[in-house]
Protein backbone atom coordinates (compact mmCIF):
# COMPACT_ATOMS: atom_id res chain seq x y z
CA UNK A 1 0.00 0.00 0.00
CA UNK A 2 2.82 2.33 0.86
CA UNK A 3 4.30 2.06 -2.64
CA UNK A 4 1.00 3.21 -4.13
CA UNK A 5 0.72 6.05 -1.65
CA UNK A 6 4.17 7.46 -2.31
CA UNK A 7 3.87 10.67 -4.38
CA UNK A 8 7.34 10.24 -5.86
CA UNK A 9 7.07 6.50 -6.60
CA UNK A 10 9.57 5.22 -4.07
CA UNK A 11 9.41 1.77 -2.50
CA UNK A 12 8.94 2.40 1.23
CA UNK A 13 9.12 -1.30 2.11
CA UNK A 14 12.56 -1.73 0.54
CA UNK A 15 13.74 1.56 1.96
CA UNK A 16 12.74 0.38 5.42
CA UNK A 17 14.69 -2.86 5.00
CA UNK A 18 17.80 -1.11 3.89
CA UNK A 19 17.57 1.63 6.45
CA UNK A 20 17.30 -0.99 9.19
CA UNK A 21 20.30 -2.72 7.67
CA UNK A 22 22.10 0.64 7.31
CA UNK A 23 22.90 -0.25 3.72
CA UNK A 24 23.62 3.25 2.51
CA UNK A 25 24.52 2.30 -1.03
CA UNK A 26 21.23 0.54 -1.59
CA UNK A 27 19.33 3.38 0.01
CA UNK A 28 20.84 5.83 -2.41
CA UNK A 29 20.21 3.48 -5.31
CA UNK A 30 16.56 3.48 -4.20
CA UNK A 31 16.60 7.30 -4.30
CA UNK A 32 16.09 7.83 -0.58
CA UNK A 33 17.02 11.48 -1.02
CA UNK A 34 14.00 12.00 -3.25
CA UNK A 35 11.81 11.28 -0.22
CA UNK A 36 10.09 14.47 0.78
CA UNK A 37 9.03 13.06 4.15
CA UNK A 38 5.38 13.71 3.44
CA UNK A 39 4.41 10.74 5.61
CA UNK A 40 1.87 9.28 3.19
CA UNK A 41 3.49 5.85 3.50
CA UNK A 42 3.28 5.90 7.29
CA UNK A 43 -0.29 7.14 7.09
CA UNK A 44 -1.47 4.14 5.12
CA UNK A 45 0.79 1.57 6.77
CA UNK A 46 -1.44 -1.05 8.36
CA UNK A 47 1.38 -2.14 10.66
CA UNK A 48 1.94 1.39 11.99
CA UNK A 49 5.61 1.32 11.10
CA UNK A 50 7.26 4.72 11.70
CA UNK A 51 8.68 4.76 8.20
CA UNK A 52 9.48 8.45 7.99
CA UNK A 53 11.49 8.39 11.22
CA UNK A 54 13.58 5.57 9.82
CA UNK A 55 14.21 7.48 6.61
CA UNK A 56 15.13 10.66 8.43
CA UNK A 57 17.64 8.96 10.63
CA UNK A 58 19.08 7.17 7.61
CA UNK A 59 19.33 10.40 5.71
CA UNK A 60 21.21 12.09 8.51
CA UNK A 61 23.45 9.05 8.85
CA UNK A 62 24.27 9.19 5.17
CA UNK A 63 24.90 12.94 5.33
CA UNK A 64 27.17 12.48 8.29
CA UNK A 65 29.08 9.73 6.54
CA UNK A 66 29.46 11.91 3.48
CA UNK A 67 30.69 14.85 5.52
CA UNK A 68 33.19 12.67 7.26
CA UNK A 69 34.32 11.39 3.93
CA UNK A 70 34.80 14.93 2.64
CA UNK A 71 36.68 15.84 5.79
CA UNK A 72 38.96 12.87 5.56
CA UNK A 73 39.67 13.53 1.89
CA UNK A 74 40.49 17.11 2.70
CA UNK A 75 42.79 16.05 5.50
CA UNK A 76 44.47 13.60 3.21
CA UNK A 77 44.90 16.20 0.51
CA UNK A 78 46.36 18.63 3.00
CA UNK A 79 48.77 16.06 4.28
CA UNK A 80 49.84 15.07 0.82
CA UNK A 81 50.33 18.67 -0.21
CA UNK A 82 52.47 19.31 2.85
CA UNK A 83 54.59 16.29 2.09
CA UNK A 84 55.02 17.52 -1.46
CA UNK A 85 55.94 20.98 -0.31
CA UNK A 86 58.58 19.71 2.11
CA UNK A 87 60.01 17.51 -0.56
CA UNK A 88 60.13 20.39 -2.98
CA UNK A 89 61.90 22.64 -0.48
CA UNK A 90 64.41 19.92 0.29
CA UNK A 91 65.07 19.49 -3.38
CA UNK A 92 65.59 23.20 -3.90
CA UNK A 93 68.07 23.34 -1.05
CA UNK A 94 69.86 20.36 -2.44
CA UNK A 95 70.07 22.01 -5.83
CA UNK A 96 71.48 25.20 -4.31
CA UNK A 97 74.10 23.23 -2.43
CA UNK A 98 75.05 21.37 -5.56
CA UNK A 99 75.37 24.63 -7.49
CA UNK A 100 77.60 26.11 -4.82
CA UNK A 101 79.79 23.02 -4.79
CA UNK A 102 80.03 23.22 -8.53
CA UNK A 103 81.03 26.88 -8.40
CA UNK A 104 83.74 26.17 -5.81
CA UNK A 105 85.09 23.34 -7.86
CA UNK A 106 85.24 25.50 -10.96
CA UNK A 107 86.95 28.23 -9.04
CA UNK A 108 89.55 25.82 -7.75
CA UNK A 109 90.10 24.32 -11.18
CA UNK A 110 90.68 27.67 -12.90
CA UNK A 111 93.17 29.47 -10.63
CA UNK A 112 94.54 32.64 -12.14
CA UNK A 113 91.78 32.91 -14.62
CA UNK A 114 89.15 35.55 -14.73
CA UNK A 115 87.13 33.76 -12.11
CA UNK A 116 90.00 33.94 -9.64
CA UNK A 117 90.49 37.57 -10.42
CA UNK A 118 86.82 38.09 -9.82
CA UNK A 119 87.00 36.42 -6.47
CA UNK A 120 90.04 38.48 -5.49
CA UNK A 121 88.30 41.61 -6.61
CA UNK A 122 85.25 40.64 -4.61
CA UNK A 123 87.36 40.01 -1.50
CA UNK A 124 89.07 43.37 -1.93
CA UNK A 125 85.72 45.04 -2.33
CA UNK A 126 84.56 43.39 0.88
CA UNK A 127 87.68 44.50 2.70
CA UNK A 128 87.21 48.03 1.39
CA UNK A 129 83.68 47.99 2.60
CA UNK A 130 84.88 46.90 6.00
CA UNK A 131 87.47 49.66 6.47
CA UNK A 132 86.35 52.32 8.80
CA UNK A 133 87.31 55.88 9.48
CA UNK A 134 90.83 56.55 10.92
CA UNK A 135 89.46 58.05 14.17
CA UNK A 136 87.61 54.86 14.97
CA UNK A 137 90.62 52.82 14.07
CA UNK A 138 92.77 54.95 16.38
CA UNK A 139 90.34 54.58 19.29
CA UNK A 140 90.26 50.85 18.71
CA UNK A 141 94.03 50.59 18.82
CA UNK A 142 94.23 52.73 21.94
CA UNK A 143 91.66 50.46 23.61
CA UNK A 144 93.75 47.46 22.64
CA UNK A 145 96.85 49.00 24.16
CA UNK A 146 95.14 49.85 27.43
CA UNK A 147 93.59 46.38 27.77
CA UNK A 148 97.01 44.80 27.06
CA UNK A 149 98.49 46.97 29.78
CA UNK A 150 95.84 45.80 32.21
CA UNK A 151 96.55 42.19 31.36
CA UNK A 152 100.24 42.70 31.98
CA UNK A 153 99.51 44.24 35.40
CA UNK A 154 97.20 41.39 36.33
CA UNK A 155 99.79 38.79 35.32
CA UNK A 156 102.40 40.70 37.33
CA UNK A 157 100.15 40.69 40.45
CA UNK A 158 99.45 36.97 40.09
CA UNK A 159 103.13 36.18 39.70
CA UNK A 160 104.03 38.27 42.74
CA UNK A 161 101.45 36.60 44.96
CA UNK A 162 102.60 33.19 43.77
CA UNK A 163 106.18 34.05 44.63
CA UNK A 164 105.12 35.34 48.03
CA UNK A 165 103.18 32.15 48.86
CA UNK A 166 106.08 29.98 47.70
CA UNK A 167 103.98 28.02 45.24
CA UNK A 168 105.42 25.12 43.20
CA UNK A 169 107.91 26.04 40.50
CA UNK A 170 105.78 24.80 37.60
CA UNK A 171 103.02 27.22 38.39
CA UNK A 172 105.48 30.09 38.75
CA UNK A 173 106.96 29.14 35.37
CA UNK A 174 103.55 29.19 33.74
CA UNK A 175 102.68 32.50 35.30
CA UNK A 176 105.95 34.10 34.26
CA UNK A 177 105.43 32.80 30.72
CA UNK A 178 101.95 34.35 30.73
CA UNK A 179 103.44 37.60 31.93
CA UNK A 180 106.02 37.69 29.19
CA UNK A 181 103.32 36.79 26.57
CA UNK A 182 101.19 39.67 27.81
CA UNK A 183 104.15 41.98 27.68
CA UNK A 184 104.85 40.96 24.05
CA UNK A 185 101.22 41.61 23.09
CA UNK A 186 101.45 45.00 24.73
CA UNK A 187 104.54 45.76 22.70
CA UNK A 188 102.80 44.75 19.47
CA UNK A 189 99.77 46.88 20.26
CA UNK A 190 101.97 49.85 20.99
CA UNK A 191 103.83 49.33 17.71
CA UNK A 192 100.56 49.19 15.75
CA UNK A 193 99.30 52.32 17.46
CA UNK A 194 102.54 54.09 16.62
CA UNK A 195 102.26 52.92 12.98
CA UNK A 196 98.72 54.21 12.80
CA UNK A 197 99.50 57.52 14.31
CA UNK A 198 102.20 57.98 11.76
Amino acid at each position, binding site marked *: *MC*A*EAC*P*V*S*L*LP*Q*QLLWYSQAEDH*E*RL*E*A*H*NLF*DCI*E*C*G*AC*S*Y*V*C*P*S*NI*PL*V*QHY*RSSKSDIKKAQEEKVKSTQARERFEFRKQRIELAEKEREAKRAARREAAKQAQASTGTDAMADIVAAAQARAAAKTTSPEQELAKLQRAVSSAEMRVEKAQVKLDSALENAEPTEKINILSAALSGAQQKLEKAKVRLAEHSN
Partner: protein
Amino acid sequence: MAFRQVSSPHAHGAQNTARLMQLVVWATIPGLIALTWHFGWGSFINVMLASITAVISEALILKMRRRPVGFYLGDYSAVVTAVLLGLALPPLCPWWVVVIGTVFSVVIAKQLFGGLGYNPFNPAMVGYVVVLISFPIEMTTWVTPLALLPDGITHPDFLESLKLVFFSTSPMDGVTGATPLDSFKHAAGLTVDQIYQQDSLFSQAMFAGVGWEWVNLGFLVGGIVLLGSRVFTWHGPVAMLVTLALMSLIFWDSGSSQSPGSPLMHLFSGASMMGAFFILTDPVSSAVSNRGRLIYGALIGILVYIIRAWGNYPDAVAFAILLANFTAPFIDNYTLPRTYGHTDRRKATERLEDK
Protein backbone atom coordinates in the same frame (compact mmCIF):
# COMPACT_ATOMS: atom_id res chain seq x y z
CA MET B 1 13.64 23.76 27.09
CA ALA B 2 13.71 20.92 24.62
CA PHE B 3 11.40 20.51 21.66
CA ARG B 4 10.31 17.05 20.76
CA GLN B 5 11.14 16.35 17.18
CA VAL B 6 8.13 14.75 15.58
CA SER B 7 8.21 13.76 11.96
CA SER B 8 5.27 13.49 9.65
CA PRO B 9 2.64 12.11 9.45
CA HIS B 10 0.85 13.69 12.35
CA ALA B 11 -2.22 11.57 11.81
CA HIS B 12 -2.65 7.95 10.92
CA GLY B 13 -5.05 6.13 8.66
CA ALA B 14 -7.72 3.99 10.21
CA GLN B 15 -6.32 0.88 8.59
CA ASN B 16 -4.38 -1.55 10.71
CA THR B 17 -3.03 -5.04 10.27
CA ALA B 18 -5.72 -6.71 12.33
CA ARG B 19 -8.51 -5.10 10.33
CA LEU B 20 -6.83 -5.96 7.07
CA MET B 21 -6.42 -9.57 8.09
CA GLN B 22 -10.02 -9.76 9.24
CA LEU B 23 -11.09 -8.43 5.88
CA VAL B 24 -9.13 -11.19 4.15
CA VAL B 25 -10.78 -13.78 6.37
CA TRP B 26 -14.25 -12.42 5.57
CA ALA B 27 -13.41 -12.39 1.88
CA THR B 28 -12.78 -16.13 1.90
CA ILE B 29 -16.36 -16.77 2.99
CA PRO B 30 -17.94 -17.09 -0.48
CA GLY B 31 -15.31 -19.66 -1.37
CA LEU B 32 -15.78 -21.49 1.92
CA ILE B 33 -19.54 -21.59 1.40
CA ALA B 34 -19.08 -23.00 -2.09
CA LEU B 35 -16.66 -25.61 -0.78
CA THR B 36 -19.00 -26.61 2.02
CA TRP B 37 -22.01 -26.75 -0.31
CA HIS B 38 -20.31 -28.96 -2.86
CA PHE B 39 -17.90 -31.02 -0.77
CA GLY B 40 -19.49 -31.25 2.65
CA TRP B 41 -18.38 -30.08 6.05
CA GLY B 42 -14.76 -31.12 5.57
CA SER B 43 -13.38 -27.75 4.55
CA PHE B 44 -15.21 -26.01 7.36
CA ILE B 45 -13.71 -28.43 9.88
CA ASN B 46 -10.27 -27.94 8.29
CA VAL B 47 -10.52 -24.20 8.67
CA MET B 48 -11.66 -24.38 12.29
CA LEU B 49 -9.07 -26.96 13.27
CA ALA B 50 -6.29 -25.09 11.50
CA SER B 51 -7.27 -21.80 13.13
CA ILE B 52 -7.27 -23.28 16.62
CA THR B 53 -3.92 -24.99 16.02
CA ALA B 54 -2.44 -21.84 14.53
CA VAL B 55 -3.45 -19.66 17.45
CA ILE B 56 -2.14 -22.14 20.00
CA SER B 57 1.15 -22.79 18.23
CA GLU B 58 1.67 -19.09 17.54
CA ALA B 59 1.13 -18.32 21.21
CA LEU B 60 3.61 -21.01 22.25
CA ILE B 61 6.31 -19.99 19.83
CA LEU B 62 5.89 -16.33 20.71
CA LYS B 63 6.32 -17.27 24.35
CA MET B 64 9.48 -19.19 23.45
CA ARG B 65 10.79 -16.24 21.46
CA ARG B 66 9.94 -13.95 24.39
CA ARG B 67 7.70 -11.72 22.34
CA PRO B 68 4.46 -10.11 23.51
CA VAL B 69 1.90 -12.84 22.86
CA GLY B 70 -1.25 -10.77 22.94
CA PHE B 71 0.07 -8.12 20.60
CA TYR B 72 1.13 -10.52 17.87
CA LEU B 73 -1.89 -12.78 18.22
CA GLY B 74 -4.09 -9.71 17.89
CA ASP B 75 -3.00 -9.06 14.32
CA TYR B 76 -4.92 -12.13 13.06
CA SER B 77 -2.09 -13.10 10.72
CA ALA B 78 -1.93 -16.60 12.16
CA VAL B 79 -5.65 -16.97 11.59
CA VAL B 80 -5.36 -15.89 7.96
CA THR B 81 -2.57 -18.37 7.36
CA ALA B 82 -4.64 -21.10 8.98
CA VAL B 83 -7.80 -20.24 7.04
CA LEU B 84 -5.96 -20.30 3.72
CA LEU B 85 -4.26 -23.56 4.59
CA GLY B 86 -7.55 -25.09 5.74
CA LEU B 87 -9.21 -24.11 2.47
CA ALA B 88 -6.37 -25.58 0.44
CA LEU B 89 -6.33 -28.94 2.23
CA PRO B 90 -8.68 -31.63 0.98
CA PRO B 91 -11.97 -31.85 2.89
CA LEU B 92 -12.25 -34.64 5.45
CA CYS B 93 -8.52 -35.27 5.57
CA PRO B 94 -7.29 -36.68 8.90
CA TRP B 95 -6.81 -34.18 11.70
CA TRP B 96 -3.09 -34.74 12.01
CA VAL B 97 -2.55 -33.62 8.43
CA VAL B 98 -4.17 -30.30 9.27
CA VAL B 99 -2.29 -29.95 12.54
CA ILE B 100 1.12 -30.76 11.09
CA GLY B 101 0.57 -28.45 8.14
CA THR B 102 -0.51 -25.60 10.38
CA VAL B 103 2.33 -26.04 12.84
CA PHE B 104 4.82 -26.04 9.99
CA SER B 105 3.26 -22.90 8.54
CA VAL B 106 3.19 -20.92 11.73
CA VAL B 107 6.25 -22.15 13.56
CA ILE B 108 8.77 -22.93 10.87
CA ALA B 109 7.75 -20.90 7.84
CA LYS B 110 6.74 -17.80 9.75
CA GLN B 111 8.07 -17.44 13.28
CA LEU B 112 11.48 -19.05 12.83
CA PHE B 113 12.19 -16.54 10.09
CA GLY B 114 11.27 -13.66 12.39
CA GLY B 115 7.49 -13.44 12.40
CA LEU B 116 5.03 -11.49 10.33
CA GLY B 117 6.80 -9.35 7.74
CA TYR B 118 10.02 -11.34 7.75
CA ASN B 119 8.95 -14.59 6.12
CA PRO B 120 10.50 -15.11 2.70
CA PHE B 121 7.86 -17.70 1.76
CA ASN B 122 4.13 -17.72 2.05
CA PRO B 123 3.55 -19.66 5.30
CA ALA B 124 0.29 -21.30 4.24
CA MET B 125 1.86 -22.65 1.08
CA VAL B 126 4.91 -23.97 2.94
CA GLY B 127 2.63 -25.90 5.26
CA TYR B 128 0.60 -27.16 2.31
CA VAL B 129 3.66 -28.35 0.41
CA VAL B 130 5.10 -30.07 3.49
CA VAL B 131 1.98 -32.15 3.99
CA LEU B 132 1.54 -32.68 0.25
CA ILE B 133 5.01 -34.18 0.00
CA SER B 134 4.75 -36.11 3.23
CA PHE B 135 1.28 -37.60 2.94
CA PRO B 136 0.57 -38.09 -0.75
CA ILE B 137 -2.35 -40.47 -0.21
CA GLU B 138 -4.27 -38.32 2.23
CA MET B 139 -3.59 -35.20 0.23
CA THR B 140 -4.84 -36.50 -3.09
CA THR B 141 -8.11 -37.91 -1.84
CA TRP B 142 -10.85 -35.42 -2.66
CA VAL B 143 -14.49 -35.69 -1.84
CA THR B 144 -16.87 -36.15 -4.76
CA PRO B 145 -18.97 -33.06 -5.38
CA LEU B 146 -22.54 -33.23 -4.15
CA ALA B 147 -24.09 -33.24 -7.61
CA LEU B 148 -22.23 -36.35 -8.65
CA LEU B 149 -23.00 -38.49 -5.62
CA PRO B 150 -25.25 -41.45 -6.41
CA ASP B 151 -28.89 -41.09 -5.40
CA GLY B 152 -29.53 -41.69 -1.75
CA ILE B 153 -25.99 -40.95 -0.66
CA THR B 154 -25.10 -37.56 0.71
CA HIS B 155 -22.02 -36.15 2.31
CA PRO B 156 -21.62 -37.06 5.95
CA ASP B 157 -23.25 -34.52 8.24
CA PHE B 158 -21.28 -32.33 10.60
CA LEU B 159 -20.92 -34.81 13.48
CA GLU B 160 -20.10 -37.70 11.21
CA SER B 161 -17.53 -35.56 9.43
CA LEU B 162 -15.93 -34.77 12.77
CA LYS B 163 -15.82 -38.48 13.54
CA LEU B 164 -14.23 -39.17 10.18
CA VAL B 165 -11.63 -36.49 10.64
CA PHE B 166 -10.63 -37.44 14.16
CA PHE B 167 -11.08 -41.19 14.40
CA SER B 168 -10.97 -42.67 10.92
CA THR B 169 -7.75 -44.58 10.37
CA SER B 170 -8.06 -45.22 6.67
CA PRO B 171 -8.95 -42.71 3.97
CA MET B 172 -12.65 -42.43 3.48
CA ASP B 173 -14.39 -44.56 0.84
CA GLY B 174 -17.59 -44.09 -1.03
CA VAL B 175 -17.63 -40.36 -1.32
CA THR B 176 -14.16 -39.74 -2.71
CA GLY B 177 -13.15 -39.14 -6.29
CA ALA B 178 -10.82 -37.36 -8.62
CA THR B 179 -10.56 -33.64 -9.19
CA PRO B 180 -10.87 -32.23 -12.72
CA LEU B 181 -7.14 -31.71 -12.91
CA ASP B 182 -6.57 -35.31 -11.78
CA SER B 183 -8.81 -36.65 -14.50
CA PHE B 184 -6.96 -34.71 -17.14
CA LYS B 185 -3.66 -35.90 -15.81
CA HIS B 186 -4.66 -39.57 -15.88
CA ALA B 187 -6.65 -39.58 -19.09
CA ALA B 188 -3.77 -40.03 -21.46
CA GLY B 189 -4.66 -40.76 -25.05
CA LEU B 190 -8.12 -39.27 -24.92
CA THR B 191 -9.11 -36.07 -26.67
CA VAL B 192 -10.58 -33.31 -24.60
CA ASP B 193 -14.05 -33.97 -25.98
CA GLN B 194 -13.84 -37.64 -25.08
CA ILE B 195 -12.83 -36.78 -21.53
CA TYR B 196 -15.69 -34.32 -21.31
CA GLN B 197 -18.17 -36.94 -22.42
CA GLN B 198 -16.86 -39.76 -20.28
CA ASP B 199 -16.27 -37.95 -17.03
CA SER B 200 -19.37 -36.78 -15.26
CA LEU B 201 -17.19 -34.18 -13.56
CA PHE B 202 -17.22 -32.32 -16.85
CA SER B 203 -20.36 -33.54 -18.59
CA GLN B 204 -22.61 -32.16 -15.82
CA ALA B 205 -20.64 -28.97 -15.37
CA MET B 206 -21.35 -25.53 -16.73
CA PHE B 207 -17.87 -24.74 -17.97
CA ALA B 208 -15.06 -26.15 -15.90
CA GLY B 209 -15.90 -29.00 -13.57
CA VAL B 210 -18.74 -29.73 -11.17
CA GLY B 211 -18.38 -27.90 -7.88
CA TRP B 212 -14.96 -26.55 -8.72
CA GLU B 213 -16.30 -23.80 -10.91
CA TRP B 214 -18.43 -22.57 -8.03
CA VAL B 215 -15.57 -22.72 -5.57
CA ASN B 216 -13.38 -20.72 -7.90
CA LEU B 217 -16.17 -18.24 -8.56
CA GLY B 218 -16.52 -17.85 -4.81
CA PHE B 219 -12.87 -17.01 -4.43
CA LEU B 220 -13.10 -14.70 -7.42
CA VAL B 221 -15.91 -12.76 -5.74
CA GLY B 222 -13.95 -12.57 -2.50
CA GLY B 223 -10.88 -11.45 -4.40
CA ILE B 224 -12.77 -8.72 -6.20
CA VAL B 225 -14.11 -7.46 -2.88
CA LEU B 226 -10.54 -7.27 -1.55
CA LEU B 227 -9.40 -5.55 -4.72
CA GLY B 228 -12.25 -3.07 -4.33
CA SER B 229 -11.22 -2.30 -0.77
CA ARG B 230 -7.67 -1.79 -2.00
CA VAL B 231 -6.05 -4.49 0.08
CA PHE B 232 -3.84 -5.28 -2.89
CA THR B 233 -3.35 -4.02 -6.43
CA TRP B 234 -4.66 -5.71 -9.55
CA HIS B 235 -1.20 -6.36 -11.02
CA GLY B 236 -0.36 -9.71 -9.45
CA PRO B 237 -3.64 -11.58 -9.83
CA VAL B 238 -4.41 -10.24 -13.29
CA ALA B 239 -0.93 -11.03 -14.54
CA MET B 240 -1.18 -14.55 -13.20
CA LEU B 241 -4.65 -15.27 -14.57
CA VAL B 242 -3.90 -13.76 -17.97
CA THR B 243 -0.68 -15.70 -18.30
CA LEU B 244 -2.37 -18.91 -17.24
CA ALA B 245 -5.12 -18.34 -19.81
CA LEU B 246 -2.60 -17.45 -22.49
CA MET B 247 -0.49 -20.52 -21.78
CA SER B 248 -3.46 -22.83 -21.94
CA LEU B 249 -4.60 -21.13 -25.13
CA ILE B 250 -1.20 -21.57 -26.75
CA PHE B 251 -1.02 -25.25 -25.81
CA TRP B 252 -4.76 -25.88 -26.29
CA ASP B 253 -3.92 -27.82 -29.44
CA SER B 254 -7.61 -27.68 -30.44
CA GLY B 255 -8.55 -30.30 -27.89
CA SER B 256 -6.39 -33.18 -29.10
CA SER B 257 -5.30 -36.02 -26.87
CA GLN B 258 -2.13 -34.08 -26.07
CA SER B 259 -4.00 -31.02 -24.87
CA PRO B 260 -3.65 -30.28 -21.16
CA GLY B 261 -7.07 -28.67 -21.04
CA SER B 262 -8.97 -25.55 -21.98
CA PRO B 263 -8.25 -22.07 -20.64
CA LEU B 264 -11.58 -21.99 -18.83
CA MET B 265 -10.87 -25.23 -17.09
CA HIS B 266 -7.46 -24.04 -15.99
CA LEU B 267 -8.81 -20.75 -14.72
CA PHE B 268 -11.69 -22.29 -12.82
CA SER B 269 -10.35 -25.46 -11.34
CA GLY B 270 -7.87 -26.34 -8.72
CA ALA B 271 -6.64 -23.47 -6.64
CA SER B 272 -6.30 -20.97 -9.49
CA MET B 273 -8.54 -18.23 -8.13
CA MET B 274 -7.58 -18.76 -4.53
CA GLY B 275 -3.90 -18.62 -5.47
CA ALA B 276 -4.37 -15.57 -7.63
CA PHE B 277 -6.29 -13.46 -5.12
CA PHE B 278 -5.38 -14.78 -1.68
CA ILE B 279 -1.90 -16.29 -1.86
CA LEU B 280 0.20 -14.46 -4.38
CA THR B 281 -1.02 -11.09 -3.14
CA ASP B 282 0.69 -11.66 0.20
CA PRO B 283 2.54 -8.35 0.54
CA VAL B 284 5.43 -9.88 2.47
CA SER B 285 6.60 -12.59 0.12
CA SER B 286 5.67 -11.06 -3.23
CA ALA B 287 7.46 -8.46 -5.32
CA VAL B 288 7.02 -4.88 -4.13
CA SER B 289 6.67 -2.63 -7.16
CA ASN B 290 3.76 -2.73 -9.60
CA ARG B 291 5.95 -3.70 -12.51
CA GLY B 292 7.59 -6.32 -10.29
CA ARG B 293 4.18 -7.71 -9.39
CA LEU B 294 3.27 -8.03 -13.04
CA ILE B 295 6.39 -10.10 -13.66
CA TYR B 296 5.88 -12.04 -10.44
CA GLY B 297 2.27 -12.88 -11.31
CA ALA B 298 3.17 -13.84 -14.86
CA LEU B 299 5.93 -16.10 -13.57
CA ILE B 300 3.45 -17.87 -11.30
CA GLY B 301 0.98 -18.26 -14.16
CA ILE B 302 3.63 -19.86 -16.35
CA LEU B 303 4.89 -22.14 -13.59
CA VAL B 304 1.38 -23.25 -12.65
CA TYR B 305 0.65 -24.21 -16.21
CA ILE B 306 3.99 -25.95 -16.76
CA ILE B 307 3.66 -28.08 -13.63
CA ARG B 308 0.00 -28.85 -14.26
CA ALA B 309 0.59 -29.84 -17.86
CA TRP B 310 3.93 -31.61 -17.72
CA GLY B 311 4.77 -32.09 -14.04
CA ASN B 312 4.03 -34.85 -11.58
CA TYR B 313 1.42 -33.08 -9.53
CA PRO B 314 -2.10 -32.32 -10.77
CA ASP B 315 -2.23 -28.88 -9.18
CA ALA B 316 0.70 -26.59 -8.86
CA VAL B 317 -0.32 -23.31 -7.32
CA ALA B 318 1.57 -23.97 -4.10
CA PHE B 319 4.78 -25.00 -5.82
CA ALA B 320 4.57 -22.17 -8.32
CA ILE B 321 4.07 -19.58 -5.62
CA LEU B 322 6.92 -20.91 -3.49
CA LEU B 323 9.24 -20.89 -6.50
CA ALA B 324 8.18 -17.36 -7.36
CA ASN B 325 8.77 -16.31 -3.75
CA PHE B 326 12.41 -17.28 -4.27
CA THR B 327 12.64 -14.94 -7.22
CA ALA B 328 10.82 -11.99 -5.67
CA PRO B 329 13.93 -10.24 -4.28
CA PHE B 330 15.63 -10.70 -7.63
CA ILE B 331 12.66 -9.25 -9.47
CA ASP B 332 12.68 -6.34 -7.03
CA ASN B 333 16.28 -5.58 -7.93
CA TYR B 334 15.44 -4.98 -11.54
CA THR B 335 12.04 -3.37 -11.33
CA LEU B 336 12.54 -0.24 -9.30
CA PRO B 337 9.91 2.27 -10.36
CA ARG B 338 11.07 5.49 -11.98
CA THR B 339 11.22 8.00 -9.17
CA TYR B 340 9.45 11.30 -9.80
CA GLY B 341 11.91 13.77 -11.27
CA HIS B 342 14.34 11.16 -12.54
CA THR B 343 14.64 10.40 -16.20
CA ASP B 344 15.62 6.76 -15.93
CA ARG B 345 14.95 3.74 -13.83
CA ARG B 346 17.69 2.50 -11.61
CA LYS B 347 18.78 -0.90 -10.48
CA ALA B 348 18.79 -1.64 -6.79
CA THR B 349 22.36 -2.86 -6.97
CA GLU B 350 23.55 0.23 -8.76
CA ARG B 351 26.28 2.26 -7.11
CA LEU B 352 26.78 5.95 -7.43
CA GLU B 353 30.33 5.48 -8.64
CA ASP B 354 29.09 3.50 -11.63
CA LYS B 355 27.59 6.56 -13.15
